[in-house]
Each structure stands twice: as C-alpha cells, then as structure tokens.
C-alpha cells in the first residue's frame, strides 16, 4: 500500500467526518421562545405546506412596478413592515387621515384614508391634505393572530362594559363597523344596526384577516385584487395584481403563526411579578387569557391562550388623541394591543422599542406613563409602586 494511497484515504476520511458532523458545528437555531415566526405546533402536513406558501408570499415576494407595485405605496412587501413577523418601526409606519368621528372619512376623494408617501419612478407621492387630521400606525406583530381571529363575538361583548357598570373606571366597547362586501360574517356573529364587531387594527376597524390582508396589499403596496380591485393611485378598477389563492395563503399563514412563547418559566418570582400586573389593574384591559371558539383549523379550535388584550376600544386620554379615527371609535379610543411577545419587539425594531400605536414610546415605562383616560388609575398605581416593583413589572412584561 503506497504512501499516496494512505494520504488519499486519510483525506477522504477527514472529508467524510467533516460533512457528517456538519450540523453540529454550524450556526444553531435561536431558542424557540426568542422567535416570533414559525407555525403553530400540530399543523398537519398539508397545513404546513400551505403555511409555507403563505410564508413565501408574505416574506419573500417583493413587488416591483412590473408586478404591480404602486404607483403609490408604503412598502414593497408584507415582510418589509413586519420583520421576523414582529412589530414595525418609524420607517415602516403608515399614516391614515381624514376621519374625525363615526360619520366616516371626509377625505376619501383626496386619497384617504391611507397616505401613500412613496412612489415609483416618475410619480409623485401623496401628501396629507390641508385640514385633515391624521394618525400614524406602527405595524403590529403578526404572531398569534389566528387565535384572536377565532375568539367569539359573544366573548368580546361579554368583556365590554360600555356604561362601566362595575365602577372600575374602565368601559371597553367594541368597534362596530360595516363589513366589506367580500367579507363573510362569522358563525354566531353579533350585529348591531347592520354593523359587526371589528377586532384587528389599532382602532379595531378591521373585521378579519382576509380584510386585513386584502387591504394591506391594496393600501400598503398598491396591489389590486379581486377583493380590493381599485387602484389607489387612479381610483379606477383594474385587473387583479395578486391572485385570490395568494391572498388566501397569506391569510392562512397569519392564522397559523404560533403565539409568542413566554421567556420565563412559571415560578414564585414570575408569579409575584404577575401579581403586580394584576394589582395595578393592567389586566382589566390587557386580559391575560382568552379562548377561541370553533375553527376549521383544528389547532385553533377551542383553545385557551394568553394574549393580554380584550380586543375592545378604550379611551386613552388626551395625550393619545390624534384627532383621527376609524369605524365607530372616538379619536381618543384605541384597541387594547396584545402584550404577548412585547419583550421580543426589539428584535424586529432594530434593537429599540417603538411602542404605542405610533411608536412614540421608546421604553415600556414610557408607554405606561403615556396611558391616560380609562387607564389613568392604573398609571397612578404604577407611579406609586416602589422602584423594585416597577422593575419587576417591566421584567414581567418583557417575559411575555
């Protein structure tokens, strides 16, 4: 056996070892509870395949003028605004204008309700018309939306307390909205004078994830569909630029994104922190636990989950009143945002916090201190906490 042959065998052996141990010396996956994206565990193979189709459409499909982008737009893809399926930043914040009360938007003829402040080559973008009030909306995280989608209307109504009958100073109300013609009402939907309960969006003015998706394609990217066929630039009905199938795949993707996993296991310390959360009445609006009704997606059906929201509108006081609204909400009313995944927000916001509806709060504490209106009492209770208790509360919120 020649020397060369031994060298050759040794080289081949080294290569084989190297390639067979690849997985052990390559960049590992981050811990599951450090990520917002990924499907709900327990989806079937077919559901996983559909999730992936939606994932590609949501995160990888970049629109260009050739594929329908704009001419006016806010972003070039869904994923541009929701990095890692998390919250957005001021760069991806959108602006809505033109409505001050329940009578509707008075500036639809001037480009309302959404400002498209970007445009393709050779086209001028929109500006906010004189006299129009506006509000900026930072994109929310997408995680767990499917669970919120299948909370029953009855449960939402049960949490509301329009007249503050329990005297806690908190009077959550649903946003009653008219349905878009392509949106089907839910089974056992509750209606009031032809209006239904909205649950998505900063003002809860969106009924379901189909409306959310079709509207985002149209208003954020300038992509028309059979659902939203009007071009946001010309106002004309034009050929669809995205298929029904793609829209439905994205809806399915949003429905089946997993919920954020808590980053602190249940122990005495966490329980103590949670008690502070309860003590200062955060949980009156940020309801720790909700449950779903029936869903055709088995893993979403009749499940209990922890979103820390009640999906209702609350008056948040003058400081957060931008003078703009949607649906039946007043300008000072905002839907309680879910707090789950709050601690992971920085991972999609470039290492910083941009909290509240428009990202004005740069820390959790600042967000708490900007609460007013129905939350005034909770804010006062927070301010009365000891520094250690405040720290514990913020640790709790970051662990959600």
């Amino acid at each position: 056996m020649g020397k060369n042959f031994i060298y050759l065998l040794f080289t081949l052996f080294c290569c084989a070892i190297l390639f067979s141990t690849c997985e052990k010396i390559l960049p590992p996956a981050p811990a599951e509870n450090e990520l917002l994206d990924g499907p709900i565990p327990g989806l079937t193979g077919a559901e996983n395949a559909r999730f992936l189709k939606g994932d590609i459409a949501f995160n990888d499909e970049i629109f260009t003028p050739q594929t329908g982008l704009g001419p006016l737009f806010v972003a070039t893809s869904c994923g541009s605004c929701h990095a890692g399926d998390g919250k957005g930043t001021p760069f991806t914040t959108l602006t809505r204008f033109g409505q001050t009360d329940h009578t509707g938007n008075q500036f639809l003829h001037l480009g309302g309700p959404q400002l498209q402040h970007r445009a393709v080559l050779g086209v001028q973008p929109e500006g906010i018309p004189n006299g129009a009030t506006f509000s900026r909306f930072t994109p929310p995280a997408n995680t767990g939306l499917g669970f919120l989608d299948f909370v029953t209307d009855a449960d939402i109504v049960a949490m509301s307390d329009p007249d503050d009958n329990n005297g806690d100073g908190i009077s959550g109300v649903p946003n009653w909205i008219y349905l878009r013609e392509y949106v089907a009402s839910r089974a056992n939907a509750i209606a009031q004078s032809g209006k239904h309960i909205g649950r998505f969006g900063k003002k809860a003015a969106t009924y379901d994830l189909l409306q959310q998706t079709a509207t985002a394609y149209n208003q954020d990217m300038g992509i028309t569909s059979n659902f939203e066929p009007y071009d946001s630039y010309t106002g004309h009905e034009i050929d669809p630029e995205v298929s029904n199938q793609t829209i439905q795949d994205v809806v399915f993707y949003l429905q089946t994104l997993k919920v954020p996993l808590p980053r602190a296991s249940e122990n005495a310390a966490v329980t103590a922190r949670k008690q502070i959360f309860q003590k200062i009445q955060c949980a009156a609006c940020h309801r720790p636990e909700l449950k779903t009704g029936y869903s055709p997606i088995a893993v979403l059906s009749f499940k209990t989950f922890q979103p820390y929201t009640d999906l209702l509108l609350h008056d948040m006081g003058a400081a957060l009143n931008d003078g703009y609204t949607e649906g039946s909400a007043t300008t000072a009313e905002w839907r309680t945002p879910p707090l789950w995944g709050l601690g992971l927000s920085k991972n999609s916001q470039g290492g910083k916090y941009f909290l509240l509806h428009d990202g004005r709060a740069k820390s959790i504490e600042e967000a708490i201190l900007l609460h007013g209106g129905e939350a005034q009492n909770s804010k006062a209770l927070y301010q009365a906490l000891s520094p250690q208790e405040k720290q514990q509360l913020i640790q709790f919120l970051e662990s959600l």
Partner: protein
Amino acid sequence: MKSQFYLTLCFWLFGVLVLLAQNDSTFFKRITSDSSKNQLNLDAVYNRPFLQAGKTPVAVGGYVESKVEYLQTDGVSEGYQFQMQRMTLFVSSSIHRRIKFLSEIEFEEGTKEINIEFASLDLQFNPMFNLRGGILMNPIGAFNQNHDGPKWEFNDRPIAATQMLPATFSNVGMGLWGKYAKKNWIFGYEAYLTNGFDEQIINNTENKTFLPASKLNPDRFEENTNGRPLFTGKIALRNRKFGEIGLSTMQGIYNKFVDDGLILDEKRAVRVWAIDFNTTLPKLNTFINGEWAWVAVNVPETFTQQYGNRQSGGFIDVVQPIVRRKIFGFDNAVVNLACRLEFVDWNIGTFKETGDPIEDKIWAIVPALSFRPSAQTVLRLNYRYHAQTDILGNPAALTGGFQFGLASYF
C-alpha cells in the same frame, strides 16, 4: 428556445472538432496560459489555456465548476446541495496577426442561465491603441476581468464582485485598450462605451439596490434603455516585483427619462468606482488579492429607503501555498491554505424618520484548503461563515457550512 439553440450549436461545434481529432491524433495543440509577470488583469480574457485545432486559426477552451455544499442558516438547512455552477466555452480566432476574435459562452446552473459573456473583435493599431468592439465585459474591478473559476481557491465568487458589482457584466459596445511596458513597470488602460443599466437596479425583487438586476434584461444586447452610453474605464499599473493596482469606474444613466420625445423623469445617474490590487509576497509566495468598490445611485427621494443610494464593499483573499511537490502522482501539485474576508454594506445612510443608521450588511469569512494537481485544475474545500443584518439592524442571520468543489479548464 434560446438555450436549446446554444446547446445545439455547442454540441455540433465540439462534435466537428472531435471528429477531426479522431482522424489526426496531433490535431489538438494546447496553448498554455502565460504565467509570466507581464500580464495584467485586463489580459485575463485571452490568457487562458486553449486547444488549437491543427493549423486553423481557431482555438477552443473552456472551464467547468461544480460543488457540493451543506449550509445552515440559524439552525435551518436545505441539506446537501450539489450544484453545477457553470460551464464556460470559449472560442478564439486569430484572423490576422493583429486582429483577434474571442467569444465566451457561459451555462450557469445547468441551462438556467445562458449568457454570451464576451464576443469581441480586437484590432491592434499599436500596443497602446487597440480597438475592441462587440459584446465586451465592462472592466469594473479585477474580478470581472479575471473571474474564471479554476483561478480561485474558493467555491463562491466574492459577494461584492458579483452582487454589488454585477459579476461578468457584459454589454454591447466598443472602445479602446492598450498596454505599455518599460523595465519593471507595465501600464494598461481600457475605456469603453456600451449599453448600460436600466431601472431594474431599483425595481427588483432583491429589495435593495442591486446593479446585477440589469443582467436580467434580455434586450440589453440590442437596445440601450435610455440611449445614453455607459462609460467604463480602467487604468492599471503593475510592477513586476510589487504587484498590480487598478482603478476603475462606470458612469451612466440608468432610467428611461424620456420616451418617444416625452419627458418621463429626470436623468438618474449610476456611478461606480473600484480599486483592486494583487501581489505575491517574496520568499513566502503568499498571494494577496483584493478589491473594494463604491456604488452611488440616484434613487428618488420619494422612493423607499429600502433601496439605498450608496453601497460599498469588497474582499481580500490570502492564498498561501504550503506544499508544492509530487502528490498522488501529479507532478508539481500544490496544496494551498487560503482565507477570504468579505463585506458589503448594501445601503449606506440613515433613516429619514429616526436618523438611525441603515443597516443591511453582510460580512463573511471563508477559510479554505485547496489542492491543485495542475495549475489548471483545483479541488477546494471551504468553510463559509457569514452574518447578514436586515435594513433595521435586527439580530443577524448567521449562515455557516462546508463547500467542496472542483474547477478545471479543459
């Protein structure tokens, strides 16, 4: 259809040559590349091993590159991927002592991408004054000029030289080139006017300013998108002892600002500058090769900042021969240790909304071990590790993995 045509053409061309060779065993004569230090990067296009067919003025050659890789990004892998990166065929012809023609056709990833990378006629009036016309490779940086796979110890081409600068960016055009040598010094220049970029550099699915997107325009060999030529120029200086340095630039307009006499937009410029160098350290024989480039694109203020108006990036390769002797029966075989460092900032600037820096960067380190049984053939084993941040600067996606490949002229 186009790919089938080229495949058929190549098949018949080589078929004819093989038949001729079978009739005459001395039919092919190998013309080896010039390894002297009289060459600049601009000579790379002709400085390749060719097979000359008998006494005909035609010579043929080519190279092949393939690899297997196992890469993983944040714990997720696509598994083992075998890739036929490219097969390139070149045909050159000496029509006259001072008139030459060379063409290069490249098949990437099977027949997924087929390009005529080079098809130019050179007329030499003087060594300092050569006219070149046809499809030519815009000489931005050194990699574009000297990109043949078998010359490199790494399975992947540098990111900055392929994705920031468009790799093997060729266009129809013409211009001048020349060389002048005196004692230890060689000076070279190239200056061409060609068809240029188009709006795809900002209207693309990469979600970033991406000059190579213009390569997707199949009409660029027959139509200039805006009628304005792209200027590409390069000067290079080599000292036989110290190495070579090159400075190059591309300057043009990328958008269709007027159509049918109607003004559509203002003229929007694309400007690129690059510096490249290479040297071999005496005694150690360490080969160092690097390139850095800057891109400036006039992106409208009203477009999204996702598409940056400035980019920069480059790479440096260090190749150290560690064994040079007969190995596995190959005389003059060489084993090299090598390492590449590379970086690209896809979007230099700050967000208008916050003033925070725009991230969107990639850096990579690629240690390598290569075995060259002959100068024209290389087997290479690379470990690749790169980190990529998105535009917001969120936690980087980490990719790592092994690549094993081979490349050879034939």
